[in-house]
């Protein structure tokens, strides 16, 4: 079978080679950011916790860029990739991670609450499924303001078992809200395996009980995610309501930095590493290992610059401690 040109696969040629390469770079950047973050934790340079998405970068690369400027993002606790692909600035992101005044949230939110209201990025989320009811409000607001925007709501397989999932999807469906529910099924809700937490084969099966379109895609396939999100956005903009997309993926690292991963085997992790989204996308772009290495080096360089920027940045002033609580 003839290989379809990458530009064509990326939705009717509107993605040029340059943009595809940028996606690849952002995927590598996400992974490098997170590996560097883990390293900084290990060396005791930062405190707190964070959740890395290493192995899941394909979904972020496929999703955010499929939407328009002005659309809304409701992110998860494992959302560094989505943040970068929503146009997040690396320096300000790193500064937030290090709790600095120059960070997106002036060091008040950290990795788990990073947001950029100016770009309609309504934040990462510390509560599993906490963003699902909020997306109903955002969708309702779009409908009332008649702005033709859409909402991209991200959550994991764990969130699909919260009550908020049910309330949110039902309300979105009865009111035809322009919401794209994108479930990143990475096989584990902390230690709870998908097979142990669900009696169904696919989370997307639940869409039918809300009278909503549902589909499952390979989350490690950037093109598949992009296409699904693009189509869901078109449906939403036409007034045809929400879509539930389940993207199958896998996280290589533990839930958070304290996870000893007693619930899975090394073999399982290795098996999934063979389906690595970055390597796969690189191959699609005919980027060989040598070229990929170069991209990784560039990413590391940028990360180091961001670290330097952040380390030089001031801490929040103690005198400002009570700021930002009330308008």
């Amino acid at each position: 079978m003839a290989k379809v040109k990458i530009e064509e696969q990326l939705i009717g040629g509107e993605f040029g080679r340059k943009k595809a390469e940028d996606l690849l770079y952002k995927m590598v950047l996400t992974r490098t950011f997170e590996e560097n973050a883990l390293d900084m934790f290990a060396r005791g340079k930062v405190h707190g916790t964070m959740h890395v998405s290493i192995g899941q970068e394909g979904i972020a690369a496929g999703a955010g860029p499929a939407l328009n400027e002005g659309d809304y993002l409701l992110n998860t606790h494992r959302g560094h990739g989505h943040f970068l692909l929503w146009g997040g600035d690396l320096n300000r992101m790193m500064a937030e991670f290090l709790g600095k005044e120059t960070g997106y949230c002036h060091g008040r939110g950290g990795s788990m609450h990073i947001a950029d209201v100016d770009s309609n990025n309504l934040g990462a989320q510390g509560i599993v499924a906490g963003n699902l009811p909020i997306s109903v409000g955002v969708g309702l607001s779009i409908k009332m303001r008649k702005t033709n925007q859409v909402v991209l709501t991200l959550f994991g397989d764990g969130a699909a078992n919260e009550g908020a999932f049910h309330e949110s999807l039902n309300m979105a469906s009865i009111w035809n809200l322009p919401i794209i529910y994108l479930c990143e099924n990475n096989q584990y809700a902390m230690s709870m395996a998908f097979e142990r937490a669900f009696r169904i084969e696919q989370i997307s099966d639940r869409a039918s009980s809300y009278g909503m379109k549902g589909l499952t895609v390979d989350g490690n396939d950037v093109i598949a995610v992009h296409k699904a999100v693009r189509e869901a956005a078109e449906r939403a903009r036409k007034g045809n309501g929400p879509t539930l997309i389940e993207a199958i993926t896998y996280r290589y690292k533990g839930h958070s930095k304290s996870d000893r991963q007693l619930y899975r085997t090394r073999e399982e992790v290795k098996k999934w590493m063979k389906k690595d989204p970055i390597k796969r996308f690189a191959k699609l772009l005919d980027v060989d290992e040598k070229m990929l290495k170069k991209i990784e080096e560039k990413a590391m360089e940028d990360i180091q610059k961001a670290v330097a920027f952040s380390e030089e940045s001031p801490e929040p002033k103690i005198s400002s401690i009570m700021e930002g609580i009330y308008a």
Partner: protein
Amino acid sequence: MRELSYMEALREAIQQAMEKDERVFLIGEDIGIYGGAFGVSAGLLEKFGPDRIIDTPISEAGIAGACVGSAVTGMRPIGEIQFSDFVVLAMEQLVMQGAKMRFMFGGKAELPFVIRLAGGSGTGAAAQHSQSLENWFVHVPGLKVVMPSSPYDAKGLLLSAIEENNPVMFFEHKLLYKTKGDVPEDMYTIPLGKSKVVREGKDLSVIATSIMVSRSIEAAEILLKEGIELEVIDPRTLKPLDEEPITASVKKTGKALIVHEAVKTGGFGGEISAVIMESDAFGYLDAPIRRLAGLDMPIPYNRTLEHHAVPQVEDIVEEARKLIKGVY
């Protein structure tokens, strides 16, 4: 002046706010054709249509989320929690999301929404439909908490709450809905964070909230015949609390009685008591501060037991007499 019931005053506030600002809308259970479980929104569906008077499925987290999400993207929603007790089903959205979003995002988001809740006992609705949970929200930075005690305040405070650029928990009392009082027709506001001296007196300061304000005034009338003058103060906004009128009154009378319907332990009375004791009013006290509050129990179904579970006029009279006589 024209008289309106507390319920009509609330309705008029919602209607005037919606007429003035198309970003304001009402969302909740049975608020449309049914008119709200207690009738507050009766007739509003006909005026504004189903796109602005939005009936929801029984999904309290969804209602709260609809408020948070639409507020942060430019709307000014009013959410109705049918019985305030049901707010337990919306706690995550209000406490984890709505209250903290602005702060977590570095002071950049605005969340102009109001959650109206019908609280209180006295209707025979028993333990799951009669609670007074306002103090839970007083404990959450990022929220404001309002408790109107009269039709006049209900309208003016609700209009202020709707204009507020922060989340406001607006606790109404079921037994007050039918009470009447003077309410101006114009669109007036009463600023949040302003306590009100509703009755002046020299012998004892009574700080009361919600329905306990009218009960305290009734008690004051009874005690006046015995030559005892109660000063009654209504904080109106529990958070932020306007402390000055409370401490000023205690400095004048030297005695404080705090009355609320919520259970005593962990109730707002403890906060008011601490405010008095941390202020310069402490030195003026010539008796212990006393709290009269709901018994530490779920609200019982039986009419007599329900009556005795929360402070009544006769309890306030008795407690005030004891304080005046120095018998505690």
